[in-house]
């Protein structure tokens, strides 16, 4: 391994940890704007990783995916979410059953689970991306966790986006991303789903006068 690769491998490890921290911010904050910023920064870090990989592997399609990721995940989607927050005038998350301290503790547990489960399952042939798969699984699990414990519809969207970021990172770290056509399809799906969810957040706010998903309780047996 050349000097340069080792340095960039270290850089990727640091970026991975920073991404994980941004996801923990999502778990630990009640301010919606902070959460969206955390998402934007994490997406930027992910794009950075993807750019590094593109540079060192020299595979063209990763450059394209990096560019789209930069435009979409760092600029368009966060911008759209800010727009929705401004429009619905909802600023903070409500205290849920699991309070913030406890949810941070549970997050630590989830990260440990991700680390140990992945270590036993995948032998890392690829030292370049050594510690990334556990981190990506941890980000996915934390996103899932946020969707379960938080009540505001926007936070649920952010949880979903965290899950998707985690999976992108997993794809990057295991196999340098998916084939280009699949990545394009996935980007398209993410964009459209966020837009549709945003529209529904707005509609729910209009009809229910709140975006607490707790108020969605009419349909049951």
């Amino acid at each position: 391994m050349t000097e340069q690769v080792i340095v960039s491998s270290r850089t990727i490890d640091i970026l991975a940890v920073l991404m994980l921290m941004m996801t923990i911010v999502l778990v630990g904050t009640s301010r919606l704007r902070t959460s969206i910023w955390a998402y934007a920064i994490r997406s930027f870090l992910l794009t950075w990783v993807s750019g590094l990989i593109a540079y060192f592997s020299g595979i063209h399609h990763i450059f394209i995916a990096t560019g789209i990721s930069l435009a979409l995940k760092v600029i368009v989607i966060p911008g759209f979410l800010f727009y929705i927050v401004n429009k619905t005038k909802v600023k903070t998350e409500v205290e849920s059953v699991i309070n913030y301290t406890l949810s941070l503790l549970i997050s630590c547990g989830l990260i440990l689970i991700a680390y140990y489960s992945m270590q036993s399952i995948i032998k890392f042939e690829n030292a370049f991306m050594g510690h990334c798969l556990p981190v990506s699984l941890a980000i996915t699990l934390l996103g899932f966790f946020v969707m379960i414990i938080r009540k505001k519809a926007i936070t649920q969207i952010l949880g979903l986006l965290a899950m998707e970021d985690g999976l992108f990172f997993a794809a990057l770290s295991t196999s340098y991303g998916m084939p280009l056509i699949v990545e394009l399809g996935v980007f398209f799906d993410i964009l459209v789903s966020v837009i549709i969810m945003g529209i529904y957040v707005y509609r729910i706010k209009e009809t229910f006068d709140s975006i607490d998903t707790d108020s969605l309780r009419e349909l049951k047996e």
Partner: protein
Amino acid sequence: MEILTLLIIPVITATACVFIKKHSISKYVSIAGSFIAFVYNIFLNYNVYTYHTLSGLNSFFYLDALSILSTQIVTLVGFAAALYSAGYMEAELHEGVFREKKLRWYYFLFHMFIFTMLLVCVSNNLGIMWVAIEATTLATTFLVGFYNKKPHQEAAWKYIIICTVGITLALFGVILTYHSAKGVIGEIGYALNWSELITVADKFEPHLIRLAFLFILIGYGTKAGLAPMHTWLPDAHSQAPSPISALFSGVLLNCSLYGIIRFHILTSKCIGPDYSGTLLMIFGLISVLVSVPFILIQKDYKRLLAFSSIEHIGIIALGFGFGGMYGVYGAGLHAFNHAVVKSLLFFCSGNLFLKYKTREIENIKGAIKTIPITAVISIIAIFAITGTPPFNIFVSEFMVLADGFSSGSVLSIVFSSLLVIGIVLIFIGFINNMFKMIFGSPTTDIPRGEVSKFTIAAMLFLLFFVLVVSIYVPPVLNEILHNIYDIVRNA
């Protein structure tokens, strides 16, 4: 090229429907488009019948018996639903439930929905299949929330959130499969093509593929309505307009299950059929058992039909899980039978709703006097869906059960016995709840007569297939089902 044509037909229809303002014209465009797709698919059917597989566009598309069965169901029920929509949506338009402008988008999304489902079935690349399955969710969210009142918004929100989370988990399964395939194939572009994967699946790393199948089963299982991930299903099915509910139940669930079966075959080839087969059996049985109490105590007839869909998806999963000749053949046949019968029942329920304006079973009486044709068809469909001989569902359920009991493993026999109990209880629940609405004397203020000719035409069209398959399995279908067994077994 042939496959591309099949995909283009619904896209053209969808685009045309956006630009036509008058419903009196757009309904015919929509019917014509879906009819062409239906006929074209029959033509493709004979192609697959002769050549076994078709591929197109640099093997971007791939069509074998498993996919042609799914596309056949999509186009058949799609045509029936387009026909039904013409009558149903027009009736609601006249009542002023929504404005005419909105119908353009209804038809656009309707045909895009058909397009995405066809794409699920014909894509060779498992990643594109994932994209298409997610796209079915996106195309239908606004259809679930079409009426845009409180319950519809709630259903739509639950639908998009739960399904997207589920499908996101499935992406992890796809990534793991890609990772293990890259280790064997090496080349990037083709490493997700099913036709390539199936030839090298035995060289995959077993623990990776095991994990991948688990994520796929949970992920696509959410969309397929397998319990316990089914929670979005009764809400979405009951709040969507009836033609859309029919498509959901009859077709969408099959398409997601199709995704699971593809991975089931890969997993079987890699580590033998026991692991994935047993998982399919477990989730299938849970689905059947979960639906039983809700069908017995149900107050809302559309929710009742939705829970029945969970039951039948469970039976199909069980059939593939048992994995013998009769099990796989029966499961494929059951997918077809369930699609036609359940869509027919949703059409009946739509007619009931148009007439009585309520979804409560208690508030409906004497359908046989107010809407006699619908009532008679409903009686046939109810007997069919509960698996009463001589109807088609009896045949396929019997095959699945026969395979379970004859397979020799204790687990299969226990599962089959529980399945029999479930089916009997569901029969009681169905007869008890549904016949309340058909018989008795109606309250006087309900006008007599059917609402629309289109709805009756759509129902007779489906009824034809119910009755035909009750009598005998047409040779093309028979051949396709045998081929499906070959595909599953050769794994």
